[in-house]
């Protein structure tokens, strides 16, 4: 069992990024009922933005510089792609986000080229030795950024006025409009935050493993994570991120030797099993029905 803790910590570090990304995904889904298939590309764009800034800034500053730009990017996507289609057929919006994903993929390759790049500079080393276990700097950074940010957002959504407005709009936009709530501005902000979270995840991922098109595949993990947490539950997304991250790492260590390749399928198997017992996901809400 000597491997257990290191693997668990590595898994949680990965899971923190799953959680961040899923948080952004679920936030958008909840507020606008749009399934954003381009979330992986949001992450990609964020990683490349960080890479570009890191060419002439120290890495921490590069990440900080990428974040407002990412927010703006999210707002623009909402204005340009999503707003004109809101209220249309669900499939139309889904097709638009898939189209957006393809377009962003192409744009990123056009601008930054197809080969894998590495960030110049690095984050301050925060790794430490705790007894027999070494906690990597990467794990510390991921957890240090994802946990407070995730929990903070959760708190904001639950308690702050802005969060209440987001939840109100997500439930009944017309009623919110009738109260004079500026729904358009608030929803654009939600897309901005989603892009911001994806960018942060992308940047942290890029620090660890470089920037390349393969980051999109990391983005695909957001679907099992979000479904596991309950598509409309922001807290669930965070929790499910950590859970799947940890399970993946442990499966890598303990199951892979017995069942090669199983780790790839694991998230989906877990989702399937959980949905059998809890059809709304771990923390998904039941619909209120009054007759």
């Amino acid at each position: 069992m000597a491997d257990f803790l290191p693997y668990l910590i590595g898994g949680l570090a990965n899971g923190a990024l799953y959680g961040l990304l899923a948080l952004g995904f679920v936030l958008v889904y909840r507020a606008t009922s749009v399934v954003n298939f381009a979330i992986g590309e949001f992450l990609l764009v964020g990683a490349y933005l960080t890479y570009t800034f890191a060419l002439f800034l120290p890495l921490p500053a590069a990440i900080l510089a990428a974040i407002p730009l990412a927010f703006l990017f999210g707002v623009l996507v909402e204005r340009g792609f999503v707003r004109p289609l809101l209220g249309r057929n669900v499939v139309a919006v889904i097709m638009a986000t898939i189209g957006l994903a393809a377009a962003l993929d192409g744009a990123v390759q056009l601008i930054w080229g197809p080969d894998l790049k590495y960030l110049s500079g690095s984050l301050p080393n925060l790794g430490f030795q705790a007894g027999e276990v070494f906690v990597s700097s990467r794990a510390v950074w991921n957890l240090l950024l994802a946990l407070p940010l995730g929990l903070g957002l959760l708190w904001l959504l639950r308690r702050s006025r802005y969060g209440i407005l987001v939840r109100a709009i997500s439930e009944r936009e017309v009623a919110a409009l009738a109260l004079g709530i500026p729904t358009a501005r608030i929803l654009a902000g939600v897309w901005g935050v989603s892009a911001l979270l994806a960018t942060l995840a992308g940047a942290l991922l890029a620090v660890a493993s470089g920037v390349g098109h393969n980051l999109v595949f990391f983005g695909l993990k957001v679907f099992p994570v979000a479904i596991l947490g309950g598509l409309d539950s922001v807290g669930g997304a965070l929790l499910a991120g950590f859970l799947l991250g940890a399970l993946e790492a442990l499966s890598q260590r303990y199951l892979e030797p017995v069942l090669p390749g199983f780790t790839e399928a694991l998230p989906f198997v877990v989702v399937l099993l959980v949905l059998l017992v809890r059809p709304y996901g771990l923390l998904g809400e039941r619909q209120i029905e009054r007759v």
Partner: protein
Amino acid sequence: MLSVENLKVVYRGVILALDGVSLELGDGEAVALLGPNGAGKSSLVRAVAGLLPKFEGRVLDGHVRLMGQEATHLDPVRISRLGLTAVLEGRPLFRYLTPVENLVAAGHRLLPQELKAGMEEVFARFPRLYERRHEQAGYLSGGEQQMLLLGMALLTRPRVLVVDEPSLGLAPKLVEELMRTLDALRREKGLSLLLVEQNARAALSIVDRVYVLERGRVVFEGDAKAAREDQDVMEFYLGKEEVGFRQAKRYRRRKRWV
């Protein structure tokens, strides 16, 4: 305060819901808009609140003026800023939010201390809401939901309040209470009230004037007293006599003269 001139509203480009409706609501006045299902009452509410685009509808012709300003094609946020709040039909509250959160959402323009004072006022008026302030609003009873909606409308600090079918689905006793509350609120806050109702008896008890809408046109307008004395309005909307199919046809014949 609110004036509607010759308004024509069309949905999806083909369904004509309002066909030249004019209506006046003076400062501090209470006016009822009556009419059967499909008469276009809710279309009028949506039009004055700027919400038609959300229902695939648009103003084809005519004008809406609010506080003397042209407001025909304004967006809902601007209209709300001008001081008109519409409570749409179907209890449009946020069911997954608690009453407190509903009130916070409604009072989004208020400063924190104003919001706090406003909420205290609402809770003082509706003690039942205070008892259930932390439950999901979707689980409140119909009457409590209606109280919450009124409280929310108040927190938007309106000068013109438009309420669409508040009595729907409420027991007669609750309807009476609701009307009394609306009346009291209006007088206290000096609001102009446009009360859209199918329940004519209830509505007429608290308004000064009345418009009757049918098939997108105003077929009767006058003061509430005249409406109560008008045979047609009485028969058709107040059900003073048993209104059967035959009488309904007679009403249609007579209506041409109205």
